[in-house]
């Protein structure tokens, strides 16, 4: 079954901005799906439409076969959302925020309280449950929104940049939690700027640019499509003039560092051979950035 089925979705805001220009997107049930794109590409508009916070201009949206136009309440019941910006009452206690959210879905306090305690425990917020939410750190606030989004046990969890501003250790903890959730059957739609996150977590991804989907494939295939990779080489006392490699493009950074672009047709062995033929002493070699990040930038610059 499709968790999300979007056909010819368009959105033009009152200001005249065309945020979505005929989006088609299908996400299978059980998938961990990434929606990637630069700021203003239309990711948050898609999420806004799915969660009924933004009205669509045209097109069809179905969530677990429920049509947004005909069965809006069933659609809402299937979705839990963790927005990009903090949108809870900063003067309320953590536990009250989560239990109230359950109430909006018709879940009584008696049922919601143990569930909320369980989620807070899982997300490492158990000792903060009676704390006023504004006193939480940024990472804690994000986890509070995840707990709130999950209180009614949605089949589809939408996360709009959930790890923005979260430190590395916490981020890895959150990945573990989301992975566990996905393994248990929750479909997850994620937008993020950390492409390492996508490589670690997601099975499929779509890249959106200026309101249109320009790539939609498995993360594996997207990585395969990467036709070059940049490596950073650390060396000693190198001058720009000495830096000449036959088969590779290089980019001088400073006397101790330069970049090499290795295309798919070349192997790293060839690079190492050429470096040694050129009498360049290599102290270290590492990929410049995340592979998906390179692919992402490559795709965005091509289209």
């Amino acid at each position, binding site marked *: 079954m499709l968790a999300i089925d979007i056909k010819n979705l368009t959105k033009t805001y009152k200001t005249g901005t065309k945020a979505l220009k005929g989006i088609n997107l299908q996400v299978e049930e059980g998938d961990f799906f990434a929606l990637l794109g630069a700021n203003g590409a239309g990711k948050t508009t898609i999420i806004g439409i799915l969660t009924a*916070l933004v009205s669509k201009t045209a097109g069809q949206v179905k969530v677990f076969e429920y049509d947004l136009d005909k069965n809006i309440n069933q659609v809402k019941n299937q979705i839990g959302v963790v927005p990009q910006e903090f949108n809870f009452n900063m003067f309320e206690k953590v536990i009250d925020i989560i239990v*109230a959210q359950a109430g909006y879905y018709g879940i009584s306090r008696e049922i919601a309280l143990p569930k909320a305690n369980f989620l807070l425990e899982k997300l490492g917020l158990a000792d903060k449950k009676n704390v006023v939410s504004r006193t939480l750190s940024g990472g804690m606030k994000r986890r509070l929104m995840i707990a709130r989004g999950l209180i009614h046990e949605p089949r589809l969890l939408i996360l709009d940049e959930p790890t923005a501003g979260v430190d590395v250790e916490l981020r890895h903890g959150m990945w573990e939690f989301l992975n566990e959730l996905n393994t248990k059957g929750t479909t997850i739609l994620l937008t993020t700027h950390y492409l390492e996150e996508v490589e670690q977590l997601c099975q499929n991804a779509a890249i959106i640019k200026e309101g249109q989907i320009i790539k939609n494939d498995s993360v594996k295939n997207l990585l395969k499509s990467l036709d070059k990779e940049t490596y950073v080489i650390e060396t000693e006392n190198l001058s720009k003039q000495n830096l000449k490699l036959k088969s590779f493009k290089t980019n001088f950074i400073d006397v101790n560092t330069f970049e090499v672009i290795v295309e798919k047709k070349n192997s790293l062995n060839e690079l190492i051979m050429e470096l040694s033929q050129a009498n360049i002493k290599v102290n270290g070699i590492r990929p410049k950035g995340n592979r998906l990040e390179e692919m992402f930038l490559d795709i965005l610059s091509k289209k």
Partner: protein
Amino acid sequence: MSFTQNLIAFVTIARKEIVRFMRIWSQTLLPPVITQSLYFIIFGAFIGSQVKDINGIKYMAFLVPGLVMMGVINASFANVVSSFFGNKFQRNIEELLVSPTPNWVIIAGFVAGGVLRGLIVGIIIFALSFLFVQPEITNIFLIFIFIFLTAVVFSLGGLINGILATKFDDVSIFPTFILTPLTYLGGVFYSIQSLPEVWQNVSKLNPVLYMINGFRYGFFGDKASDVNIWISLIMLAVSSIILYIICNTLLNKGTGLRS
């Protein structure tokens, strides 16, 4: 959602509203008590002692229903407008909008908060009046109906204001420029019979006059009311329905809430 689920959602919203205004009681419950006490002292005790009885009712006693109603009107309106706009401003209204809670439940929840704050303020002011005058009650049922329906009307009004407001200034424009003049000119401090006929007729266009007079009727019966009690009741009921329809339409359209 089923009836029970709707009831749970309603109780959740109402509970949040009540907790909110009780938590900040020094901003929500105390100020009207202080203001109305000053009215009792200045208009009732100091000036009122020099004013002759109105249709056989002591001026201080005449003042009580008007001041109670004034407190109820301001409290119920202010509660809903500030709470709803605050929810919009902080964006936590989205918690409700992404949920399957029907719009009529959202309206009922916010109105319940406004009505309860209005009633609490009204009861405190009425209790305060005991310090100045012995209360006279003719029809407790009418007193309750009028105070309740007035609180509903102004809570709905506050909700409409909250939905339409886009900045903090918009929250205070209606109370300052419309609500306050209508209340002060709605017979809180005087009977319109003391006005020239032209102004009596103009006053009869003011809906607040009917609310205050209907409420006053519950205390003193026929002798204190400037308008027909049934017209007052029908007007209140019709206003509630019209304002509810406006609220529901605005929420259905997502005015000020959805882009």
